């Protein structure tokens, strides 16, 4: 009840980053299975996708369910970015051992890496402008326009997952389906206060 908003926001970051801490700890302790690098890399990527979907769910939750988590949306979006960054760092540092030539070859030759990098490249400016000062400087309209790019980043991230797997396992398809559903929900017509369609 009486917990101040700042503390509650901080809690979202602390809880949100707990999986990353746990994964690194398990990795260092050699508990991530026979392919620990791949496991760490994939788990970090999936957490990025989860937080991206959580951030995208805020608006439809408010509109269709009446649950307002708008105050935590920035934290969810930034967590998605942090995990995307850690996922990329694991790929460059652990998977490729800073072999930049191999990383570059991956980016230009492998569509799943290309769209993954594109997703990260989009998330970067969004993360850098996720503060009150940037909103003031840019103006609300321009800021909102820029941040609509998150839709593209989410689609690219979901495609990144679908493109790497063999055959058609369920998990990447479920993430892709959720992404598309959350984006489509934004196309639902807006009702006015009186309950008539505002066309």
């Amino acid at each position, binding site marked *: 009840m009486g917990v101040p908003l700042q503390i509650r926001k901080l809690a979202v970051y602390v809880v949100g980053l707990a999986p990353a801490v746990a994964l690194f700890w398990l990795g260092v302790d050699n508990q*991530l299975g026979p392919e620990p690098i791949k496991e760490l890399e994939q788990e970090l990527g999936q957490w990025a996708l989860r937080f991206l979907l959580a951030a995208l769910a805020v608006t439809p939750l408010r509109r269709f369910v009446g649950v307002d988590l708008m105050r935590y949306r920035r934290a969810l979006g930034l967590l998605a970015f942090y995990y995307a960054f850690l996922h990329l760092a694991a790929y460059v540092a652990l998977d490729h051992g800073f072999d930049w030539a191999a990383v570059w070859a991956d980016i230009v030759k*492998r569509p799943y890496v290309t769209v993954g990098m594109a997703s990260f490249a989009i998330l970067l400016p969004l993360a850098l402008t996720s503060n009150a000062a940037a909103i003031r400087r840019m103006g609300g309209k321009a800021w909102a326009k820029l941040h609509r790019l998150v839709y593209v980043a989410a689609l690219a991230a979901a495609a990144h997952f679908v493109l790497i797997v063999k055959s058609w396992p369920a998990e990447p398809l479920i993430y892709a389906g959720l992404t598309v559903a959350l984006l489509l929900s934004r196309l639902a017509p807006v009702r006015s206060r009186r309950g008539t369609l505002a066309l």
Partner: protein
Amino acid sequence: AASLVGAKSRFSTDERPTPRADVVAYNNFYEFGGGKSDPAARAGSLTTSPWSVEIDGLVAKPAKYALEDLIRSSELEERIYRMRCVEGWSMVIPWLGVPLASVLARAEPLGSAKYVAFESLVRPEEMPGQAGFLQLLPWPYVEGLRLDEALHPLTLLAVGLYGEALPNQNGAPLRLVVPWKYGFKGIKSIVRISLVEAQPKTSWNVQNPREYGFFSNVNPKVDHPRWTQATERRIGEGGLFAKRRPTLMFNGYAQEVAGLYAGMDLGRYF
């Protein structure tokens, strides 16, 4: 599991075998699900005894063999082979088995036989990956070799690993091991071996012909369309900070098998 002993073989590598714990825990066996730990978790209930194998097609003596008549434990060899998965990881596994050639000889292949086709068990009630809504491959899993590949002395029919009968998740009770090809060519839980004239269908080639060829020889110069095959990660080596190792042509068995493909364009026949 029952312990097995095999004669040492000159074909064995002296590389350090991958820890048994990893060999029996990290498997692709889509009949039990798509996750690497699914086979170890879900294959326990597979009934592997009694087991029979049909050898048919272009042979003088087609027959249905009980497994214990097909492969006698006194004939077993231990073969320590590298195993390279198409996904980019590798292991070193001490198999127990007999050369496929010696088994085929008993059926007396006819001169018209050009290929060998293999078929896996279909038993949805014991193989959860073959039941339900989302199935990852069409069943039965099928594989094939050219006859000269099948008769090559490196090609093994395995019934065990690490001194015991094959754990179910590794393809019990009988699987193929072709060490110079990607691991998925090593069809598991075999119930039929047919000598045929035309190149047989193979499961992953049917699933995605652009990505998985009939030959599927390990080749660092021919990338998978979606990932590199130039390097690999050896399972159980070095944890979080392990380096990739270069993948070897024909998985390091070029000296023995390169002659099978003399003059062939390996980029086209991948």
